[in-house]
């Protein structure tokens, strides 16, 4: 057990490795997306029904973050040493 622990990454590092890179990449994706398209082009119906740009930007960002976060979570999950599956 102690041998495994020596290879172990601190829990806080795992949490950060999921939350933080996903936050950064979704930010970059967000900038590129809205550099090319305006919210009016992407969601004309929402704009017409009175939804503000701020809400569209925010929800887009949170959605992108959720997507990248899921990907980071899966990476973290698959990075677990395989030999431990049989422990």
């Amino acid at each position: 057990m102690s041998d495994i622990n020596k290879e172990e990454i601190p829990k806080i590092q795992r949490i950060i490795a999921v939350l933080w890179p996903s936050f950064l990449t979704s930010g970059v994706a967000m900038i590129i997306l809205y550099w090319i398209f305006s919210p009016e082009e992407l969601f004309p119906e929402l704009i017409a029904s009175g939804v503000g740009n701020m809400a569209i930007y925010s929800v887009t960002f949170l959605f992108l973050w959720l997507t990248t976060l899921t990907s980071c979570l899966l990476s973290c999950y698959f990075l677990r040493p395989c030999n431990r599956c049989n422990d």
Partner: protein
Amino acid sequence: MSSTDPNNKQEYDSLYAKRKEIYPREVHGIFATWRVAMVALTLGLYYVLPWINWGEGRQALLFDLPNRKFNIFMLTLWPQDLIYLSALLIISALALFLFTTVGGRLWCGYACPQTVWTEVFLWIERKMEGSRPQQMKLAKSPWNLNKIIRKGGKHVIWVLFSLWTGFTFVGYFTPIRELAQAIPTWDLGPWETFWIFFYAFATYGNAGWLREQVCIYMCPYARFQSVMFDDNTLIISYDEKRGDPRGTRKRGIENKPADKGDCIDCDLCVQACPTGIDIRDGLQYQCIACAACIDACDDVMGKMDYDPGLIRYTTLNEIKGEGLHIFRPRVYLYTSILIGLILAMGWSLVTRIPVSLDVNRDRNILYREATNGDLENVFKLKIMNQDSKPHDFIITMEGLPGSVLDTDQDVISAASGETANTLVRVRASEDVIKDRSTSITIKVTATDNQKLTDEEDARFIAPADWFQ
């Protein structure tokens, strides 16, 4: 509790081991003064800048996302100007390379938001809980009224300061004066509220709780900064030749024992370290080069009547006795690229003409016969006014002598940041058309400023059978 070395295998590598709390000792000295000055400068700018106006009621720095425009003092940038943002990022990265090559992690120690906000949070902590020994005693003491008031008070002040930080952050994206007016009646938009709390939470968590763990686990720069180091880079280092062998001594009686070096092993450099390392173990990636250990050590050296600089800014070459070499090819290279980029970006910004024209042929028809028998080509024009003021534009054309340009209106108005769409018809009689395809230039010019102009080439198409 004095040594919380993250290199300690058992402590840090165990999944269940809890991180030991670090209580950095307060230090005074030249570098602490520099850091306080930098905290005042950077945070002063952060909290004050959004309140500054440029011109009539125009916030000087406003990243106006709803209207998709960035106010940067006299400039207004639009999504099309993203190139400037990219250029700014490249320039910042190069500047960081240059500073790192010369002075090591200067950014980390004096300018990084994590350091700067942590300094403020540490200051609040000291005001509420006292000095390092007092804080450690309070942490161990059972919960009583005094502990609740001190700890609770600290968190209340931290939260309030974080909320102010979050409010200021949102103030860079939503006009801060409108935001401030909405606060007393809590009339904020739902997303403004969300982002204020989000950023406040991030500030409270990073500067209050995570602290050195942000530098160790979150910072990408910390991981790769070592590749910019060479043997001539300034680093904070303990002079082992002078300091070792270490040991305590009786003050006054035994000031310079023959069997000992200058390090009296007082541990103050370790207690002062905000990342909890012992600088005497050599250069470590956890070191953010804040120089708190230099201040702590120099203070002790002064009390012992020893020369300062047992821990100091030095280079690997200087320690080896080869002297300081600040100016070297790598530094010249970074500096010249940096200056070149800054000049290019400055020139591009100064000469930037805030209007753009887009000409597209009417896709339905190549050419047609006008009512007077002339040949007619139709073009769709998009005029984007990127200036901070509204303008009227006139449209002109060159390249086909004897032709007529017919527009819907004499002048086309476009508000600030608006794109005006219009159709133009170019008409020419058969005798002036010399070729099947003639290059023409369509040009827009603001009526109030001749320099505000843009042009684009297009082609005037005639029937192929005219020229067979």
